[in-house]
């Protein structure tokens, strides 16, 4: 836009740089460019990874690791056609690795011999009794518990679709499988979730 002869200032609309451009600037040594990438993706990635692994501290570490990997790959910026799906692929892979690691640990801990009665004595968590929880928190917790029953590949698909709002084509790119497979995974995940939440949903009606 130009300034008119009469001196009337016409508002100039600044073009927002694309993610790929920002990565190129990071490669060229522009420190502000990386801050902008972090600002753009921090919350989305954090929520994606948090819903995936269910632990905020862990999610933060994984998101930081995601950004570090993006930084390491700055030299290869020309090869990245879709930054948005690429960064979610990195985060998703890290989250899946974390779940695999936990599963291994759980395997080892479950392998411990049980007590003679066959049951372990558990101290109830008094800090989060259902009657103390707010309605929103109850919903969130019920959904979290239902999500934990999903295997990582179904969990990832449904989070990307229903929480992050990605198109099926984008999810296919992130996960690296055909759109039909993604749709099938999302459908199966939703069917499982509605089954898991069936009693809860009927209870609050």
């Amino acid at each position, binding site marked *: 836009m130009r300034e008119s002869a009469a001196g009337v200032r016409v508002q100039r609309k600044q073009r927002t740089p694309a993610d790929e451009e920002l990565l190129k600037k990071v490669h060229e040594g522009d420190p502000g460019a*990386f801050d902008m990438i*972090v600002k753009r993706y*921090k*919350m989305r990635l*954090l*929520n994606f990874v*948090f*819903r995936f692994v269910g632990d*905020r*501290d862990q*999610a*933060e570490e994984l*998101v*930081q690791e995601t*950004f*570090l990997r993006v*930084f*390491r790959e700055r030299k290869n910026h020309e090869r990245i056609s879709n930054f948005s799906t690429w960064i979610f692929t990195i985060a998703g892979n890290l989250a899946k690795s974390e779940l695999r690691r936990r599963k291994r640990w759980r395997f080892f801990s479950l392998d411990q011999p049980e007590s003679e009665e066959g049951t372990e004595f558990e101290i109830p968590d008094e800090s989060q009794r259902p009657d103390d929880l707010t309605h*929103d928190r109850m*919903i*969130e917790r019920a*959904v979290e518990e239902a999500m934990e029953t999903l295997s990582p590949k179904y969990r990832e698909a*449904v*989070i990307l679709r*229903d*929480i992050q*709002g990605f198109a099926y084509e984008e999810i296919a790119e992130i996960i690296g499988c055909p759109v039909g497979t993604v*749709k*099938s995974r*999302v*459908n199966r995940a*939703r*069917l499982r*979730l*509605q089954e898991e*939440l*069936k009693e809860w*949903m009927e209870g609050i009606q």
Partner: protein
Amino acid sequence: MIDCKRAQDSMSDFIEGLLETEKHNIVQTHVDGCSLCASVCERMRRVRDLLNGLPQVASSPTFEHILKDKLRLERERSEGTLWRRLPSYLPIRPRPAFAFSMACLAVVIGLFLVKSTLLQKRQPLFIAESEHSTKVERISPSEDTVSLGSPARLVSDRNEAPNYVLRKISPQHLELQRGYLSSTWQSQFNREYILGQTRLQWTSEGLQAVKYVLPSATPPRRLQTVTFSP
């Protein structure tokens, strides 16, 4: 008509309106006539809304600070020299696994050093003969080998026989070389045959090498004693 399984296989696309009109109508007809699938469809819509409405988690106040620290280390790693890069490999926050592995590494290195020192001590040492060497090392029953600064030589009374200089000796070599060191020797000095003998013996001061010269038909006479003592 389709059965419940096929209807539910298309349920996601159905509730999102992604089915083609013809297929959408088929599923719709089934859902209208099947209370089970109607319930599934309704619950699936609610699940979708629930997921969509989940509260956003906020990052901790230290998130960006920690990230910047990690990025700084990353830059140092990729740009600095090897010496400058080394500290960047240390974790920002102390981690038990890292500390444990470092402790194990220190123990292994320590054991290796101790073992190599012991091995060095146990290594068989040699006995050298030289006319010009000035260093003699002595041995004592409690220590394998200790260097002795002062020169010591085994010489005959006439300074004509070759000097024996024991540079280093260990108990193993003492055993191995006992035959040589204690051998009886014979040489001719000034047209006179001299029968000689070197004897090694432990004393309270250490190992003692004593050389005897046995002139013919004369009783053994002690010529010189060199005591290898501290």
